[in-house]
């Protein structure tokens, strides 16, 4: 079957999709977006976490056909998503035009809004690097999507809030402490407006 949906702000179409296929498979194997990881295919690890109409879900447990007409944000689109949020557009409405400051700050960085490569990182991504929260990196994309959504909903989360929000994401390398540091760092920078 054919499935249409929006990925990271762009309309996409996937052909020859098997009816029992997961959204994760379509993203990785049909749309060439390997950021979302496949580690368990049973909802246990969270490494496939994406936003589906804004809501964090395990893309391995969404049937591809269920994504028809919906909006998906993957880790590849996280920086764009964060930028748009900072500009106050997107779900909360508001004007999405480019501001004068932004226009002045524009650099030809060759970013690809589809793959996210070559572009600037979102604050959460930068915080993960700065805090040393990435080791093998396999869990990272899912954690980034989950952490970014947490900070969107709750700009000043307590440690308990962070633990709860990330309880669906497993990491076998870091022992989680640096991940906690990274989310705290992103929250602190966000509240300072850095």
């Amino acid at each position, binding site marked *: 079957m054919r499935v249409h949906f929006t990925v990271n702000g762009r309309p996409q179409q996937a052909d020859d999709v098997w009816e029992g296929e997961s959204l994760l498979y379509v993203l990785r194997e049909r749309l060439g977006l390997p950021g979302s990881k496949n580690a368990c*295919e049973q909802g246990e690890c969270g490494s496939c976490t994406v936003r589906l109409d804004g809501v*964090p879900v395990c893309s391995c*447990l969404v*049937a591809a056909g*269920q994504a028809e007409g919906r909006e998906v944000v993957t880790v590849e689109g996280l920086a764009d998503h964060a930028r748009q949020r900072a500009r106050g557009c997107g779900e909360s409405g508001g004007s999405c035009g480019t501001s004068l400051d932004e226009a002045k700050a524009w650099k030809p960085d060759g970013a690809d809004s589809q793959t996210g490569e070559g572009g600037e990182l979102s604050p959460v991504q930068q915080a993960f690097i700065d805090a040393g929260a990435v080791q093998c990196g396999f869990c990272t994309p899912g954690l980034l999507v989950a952490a970014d959504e947490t900070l969107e909903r709750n700009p000043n989360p307590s440690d308990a809030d962070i633990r709860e929000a990330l*309880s669906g994401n497993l990491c076998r390398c870091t022992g989680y402490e640096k991940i906690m540091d990274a989310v705290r760092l992103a929250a602190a920078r966000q509240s300072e407006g850095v």
Partner: protein
Amino acid sequence: MDFLRPASWEEALAVKAEHPTAVPIAGGTDVMVEINFDHRRPEYLMDLTRIGDLYEWEVGDDTVRLGASVPYAQIMEHLRPELPGLALASHTVASPQIRNRGGVGGNLGTASPAGDAHPALLAAGAEVEVESVRGSRRIPIDGFYTGVKRNALAPDELIRAVHVKKADGPQQYSKVGTRNAMVIAVCAFGLALHPETRTVRTGIGSAAPTPIRAKAAEDFLNAALEEGGFWDNGKIVTPSVAKQFADLCAAACNPIDDVRGTASYRRHAVGVMARRTLTWTWESYRGAHRTTEGAA
């Protein structure tokens, strides 16, 4: 495989009547695991996520009509005052990602003895509204679970909503597992005090082939509370009464040994949870009782 996308409830019923083997998929948190691991290859997969009606709830005078697909995350956020037991149980399900998708309709569809909604529904009192092209009926929750992962649905029927009694007193939910997130219950216990009818109801998960109530324990406790005038005097439940209640709850179990725990551990744990949830709910009832007495 065919992927069917009914746009309305009526269309879904028609599809299910035409293809009784069609597997409904709501949050997909049970169905997709089975498909990913090739445990299930349905001929038809019927997506229910286009049917907005299934995502709505209505708070009535005595009950909440909870659409079959309302995700656990919404129950926790919006229905805590009306359905405290179910909200607590919802919070113990898996992880935020799973709670954003999975809901009570899917839990009832799977009818696993370990499903977390079941003890809460049994304790609160509920009816499952099911429908087919032949008509609609309400199945009392006590009669809904018919065997291990079996329920009372006919092949052409779908779950439309669950009518859950609004809490008229404190409710609790307790679950044993190896950690706080992402655990299927080793066993679980739900308890609801119903001061209006002066009754206590229970629900036990993962300790018998189906979710069950501990009816003998309820009868014993109802009689003991009535005899001692506890509902009126708001006294502490005597330890011997609590112990007898806990023993009867443990005796209601018919558990098995499996990777998650032994039968004897489960029976023991159910007794402990029964005593604890009784203490917690009764303390909170006494607290409310004292406040109303004081105000009067």
